[in-house]
């Protein structure tokens, strides 16, 4: 019993040379399959690589749901199958189906409307904002995730370009000599580099 776990553990650690036997054993043994899963989980945990959401055993959950599903049996013969009644019922049924279809459509429309509503109070758009890295080669290219009114857009863009250029410049001119020591009063400098040199560098900004 413990030997088979031992072999599996060694395999997962990459210490087992002949892996075929162990994998064959795992295929035919539910205990080992469980171990296989938990060993990998432990490893991911140790490496801090666990995903943000843990969804184990989707297949098992589905299987369980099917298990609990009530069996569908063939219906008994009833009075509905009398000739007259059976020809009336389809009408009623169709009407019912129409009603169901209509209500589904209404529900969908409501749902779509709700989904398209933007939450004004929300600080960010629902889509993750950082991922739109399509900046291209220009250092001042910038993608906006929220549209500003048209008249202000140009002004806004100008300001953002100015910030981006200045950020690039700051990154270029930063210097480090030793780990920074905490100090209470911080010096405030006025435009550190003389204007001439500054504009030269701004013009180029390659990359």
């Amino acid at each position, binding site marked *: 019993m413990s030997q088979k*776990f*031992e072999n599996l*553990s*060694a395999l*997962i*650690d990459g210490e087992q040379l002949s892996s075929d036997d162990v994998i064959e054993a795992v295929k035919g043994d539910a205990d080992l399959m469980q171990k296989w899963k938990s060993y990998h989980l*432990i*490893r991911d945990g*140790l*490496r*801090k*690589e666990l995903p943000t959401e843990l969804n184990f055993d989707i297949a098992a959950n589905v299987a369980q749901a099917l298990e609990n599903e009530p069996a569908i049996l063939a219906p008994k013969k009833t009075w509905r199958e009398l000739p007259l009644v059976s020809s009336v019922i389809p009408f009623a049924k169709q009407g019912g189906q129409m009603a169901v279809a209509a209500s589904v459509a209404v529900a969908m429309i409501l749902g779509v409307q709700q989904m398209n509503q933007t939450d004004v109070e929300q*600080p*960010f*758009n629902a889509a993750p*904002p*950082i991922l*739109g890295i399509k*900046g*291209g*080669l220009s*250092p001042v*290219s*910038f*993608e906006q*995730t929220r549209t500003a009114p048209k008249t*202000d857009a140009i*002004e*806004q863009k*100008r*300001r*953002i370009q*100015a*910030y*981006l*250029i*200045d950020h690039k410049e700051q990154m*270029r001119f*930063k*210097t*480090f*000599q*030793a*780990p*920074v020591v905490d100090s209470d*009063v*911080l*010096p*405030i*400098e*006025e*435009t*550190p*580099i003389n204007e001439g*040199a*500054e*504009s030269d560098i*701004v013009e*180029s900004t*390659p990359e």
Partner: protein
Amino acid sequence: MLKVLQNKLNGRALLALLFFVNVSTHLHAQPEPLNPQLTQEEIEQYPVDSAQAWLTKMSQASRSLNFSITFVLLKPGVDSQPYLWRHGVTAEGIEMEELNLLNGAGKKALRVDKKVSYFEPNVPPYSLVSTTINGPFPSQFFRYPEKLFVGYDLVMVGKSRVSGRAAQQIRIISKDKSRYGLNVWLDQETGLLLKMNMFNLKNQLLEQIQVTGLQVTEQPDPFFSKIEIGMLPEVVNIEQNKKIRSPWQIGYLPVGMELVNRKLRRLSITSEVVEYVMLSDGLVDISLYIQENVKSKTTGRLVGANQTDTLFTIQNGPLNITIIGKIPAATANAIATSIQRQP
């Protein structure tokens, strides 16, 4: 259940427990570093074979070895950028370092001890006084890795093979989950960098540095002996003005992040004067701009991305605050909304 657990402990999957057992054998297997005195002293602060010791070893190696490394920088949406990175210590003990972008017109930076000279197209060459070259690497990663220990958790992940060499993988994750993380692979023999991945909080890759060639030599590269130190461009003067207290106080900073620079700037396009703050945690440097009473109505919240930089703007009372840097937008929001008038 207990028995299973016991089996597990006896097994080898819980590598972490065995680090301590492995230590003695592993230590003897390591080659002697070039500068044993300093290395021993520096590494002994940390448990042997800990991530801290490995990063210290990396720092020591990149300051003391004569090496020539080629690597490629990969960013989404941008062409790959190949670099040549050379380092040497001359017979007089002067440290020299070169970083050279190999594609296109090229950009080149040369460091001689504490003077870094930059040669770039369309810009007159200039020099700065600094111990690190501003390049694609995290600014202080190689020089002062201990700065990371404050704000980041370091996890030894395991050994693997990168660039054809045996590598030790280390994961660097911010303690408060407020910044991006790093995966680094270090050469087991020398401690030099082989690969570096930056990933966001969802473990998606943002930026990658992959070393393609690594050579360590006895003597520094002949290239360094050709440099005429006297011919290097002059140091750009950064004038220190009188110290003024800013009326604004930043209430929230992520763990390990601190203020490294604060000054007033005139923006080049709009000619507006803004207060500039640089924040750094040793891994990322971010810019924070504070502007009071903006005349135009072009304010409001805005989130965007420029390559791997996040750009975040918010109107906070009378202040227009903009943050740019490699941090998640939620962190930028937390910093920006915490700014208040000094009591």
